[in-house]
């Protein structure tokens, strides 16, 4: 097996070999943790399968190490499992925020075009700049429709959460407390729960979400 030191590039990022080594070293518990992370975060995203999301996260540093761009892993700074957890968050978030991504693309394209224009204005292609950087009426309409669709889906998802937990008063109290931004202590005080009851209800809430989110929504 190749040593970790030699399996890292000079800039501290993992090489393909180092990533493969880390994948091979994943424990069952690590995997379960990542899979559950994927399950919670899939809600509202385009992902339908938590395993797909985990696989995408694992291949992220692999492609990056092979020179394909994307998020790279620095073994000296963060453990592989935590890196993967963050990558899962990024992928799910990316999948959810289509509109934001589009706007950012426009901004990037616009600034790139301006830079280019300042060097050689006559070569600036309007198709590449104006149209791309400025959302058209049609594009805006599509964006708005997507927003409405996504909001409807979020509403449905929230309604399903409430429906699922409606008979579990303690969990419903926790959900209400989370929505209000209350701390665990505040929630326990309001509901008159012991620490054990609170921990148990939190676990029921978390386990409930696992069965609610996967594969329920799509863009």
């Amino acid at each position, binding site marked *: 097996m190749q040593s970790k030191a030699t399996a890292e590039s000079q800039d501290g990022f993992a090489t393909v070999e180092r990533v493969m080594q880390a994948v091979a070293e994943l424990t069952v518990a690590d995997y379960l943790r990542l899979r559950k992370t994927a399950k919670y975060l899939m809600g509202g995203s385009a992902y339908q399968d938590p395993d797909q999301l985990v696989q995408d996260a694992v291949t992220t540093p692999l492609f990056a190490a*092979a*020179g*394909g761009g994307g998020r790279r892993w620095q073994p000296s700074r963060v453990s592989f499992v935590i890196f993967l957890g963050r990558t899962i968050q990024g992928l799910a978030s990316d999948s959810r925020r289509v509109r934001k991504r589009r706007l950012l693309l426009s901004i990037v394209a616009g600034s790139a075009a301006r830079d280019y224009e300042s060097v050689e204005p006559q070569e600036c292609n309007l198709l590449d700049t104006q149209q791309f950087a400025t959302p058209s009426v049609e594009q805006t309409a599509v964006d708005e429709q997507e927003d409405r669709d996504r909001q409807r889906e979020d509403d449905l998802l*929230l309604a399903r959460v409430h429906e699922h937990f409606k008979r579990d008063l303690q969990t419903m109290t926790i959900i209400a407390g989370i929505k209000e931004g209350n701390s665990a202590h505040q929630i326990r005080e309001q509901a008159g729960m012991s620490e054990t009851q609170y921990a148990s209800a939190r676990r029921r809430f*978390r386990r409930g979400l696992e069965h609610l989110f996967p594969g329920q929504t799509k863009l």
Partner: protein
Amino acid sequence: MSPRTPNDLLSLLQQAALDDLQQTSDEELLKEALEDGDDAEALLAALQQRVREQADAAAQQNCTDHLKRSVISLERSLKKRACQGFSPPADGMHAAGVHSVVRKRAQWWGGKGRRQATLDSALEEEEQALAASILMKLNDSSKARCRSDLPFDCDAESLVRRDRRSELIKRLLLELVEYWIFLRMDEFSELADLLPESRARILRPLLRNAIHDPQILKFASISLGTLASMLCTSALAKASGLDIDPHRSADERDELLRRIRAKAEWRAFHNLIDHEPRLVTDSVDPARAISALATMQRALAAYNPDAIVAVAGGGEIVGDFLRKQIGMDARRYFVASCKDGEYTLDRDLRTGGVIKRVVIIDDISRTGRTLTSIRNHTFGGMDAIEFKALALVSAAVAIDRIRDFFLLLPVVSQSSNVSVPWDTKGSYRTTRTSYVFGADHGARLKVPKELYEQIYGDVGT
């Protein structure tokens, strides 16, 4: 403050679940997996296997290899087509040129790929030689572009039916676009964060669908021509030893440019650039309009027509300007007006003397019907005369109609509802210091003569 949107609420619930997960021990997770009936070990093994399968491909995925594989794939495709009896048609240098260039490129990459994957100085020399070779081949198509042979094909649908080369061209274009995006992605870290490695999965289907979209394909064909000329520009600069060094003195630069301009490749290159259509969405800005007028004047002077026929209205503004610019006698200048759906001249064409070449000029060709109607109906049966169409801006859909007889396409617009930067109901006037387009009516464009002459001087040789 309480969150407001359903999305915010969902995010809070998801985060709460993640927080709870962090506090959950490994033992508890294993117990939960048992409760759910998940065979976690088997699932993990399957994941590791899938990742291993991707590792080999990922390890190869660097820029050079990416391009190399693309072109080698093209080479294989060409060989396969050759086995199926496909061969490049003899008609048209451009058609043979593209085929030949792609094959040569593929062979070059293929041969090098077996021996050495990285670029070295020897490869650089080959690059330069290849650039010059490509340039010479494209020169033929460039000359044809000035006339009506249409080397780039806007009617890609019919091209697909005619022969299968367009499939290869599309694939090449696709590979280049993917390659370009691949490179650009790395430049913007924000973008890379938003589109991590899954971008390839998002982009590829989008691009592959787009390349088969007939509307997009029309522009893709034109863009391919633009891309080719830009690549040639860079390659030629390198082949000619052009070093864009800001510290170089003006004399050194002039000397270098003189040496470059003496080369046949440079002249070919200039010819290419001069006749490259500019793409716009739905309006022509003043700078592009002036540049287009200068290009039209250059092409008109080279073609040396015996008469000009301006389409009444907007066509007169451009036609009158160009006639005066090339110094054509007013007796050889005609105006075609529409009456009862048919275009008629303000006087008999024969009053202009012996006429063999006529250019029909309009400002905007939205559908191509006006120009086609004048050539086919107004001048129907005049087989001894060669008619050419020249519009400042042509919509992409119009090109289908005028493809057989356009003299030049200075500007091509995506939309048919395209506009020029002056009121087309106005007229053309000249003052002591300026050319005025759209005068006497609404918006006008005033172009200082000195500026125009400067631009005209820069357009072509």
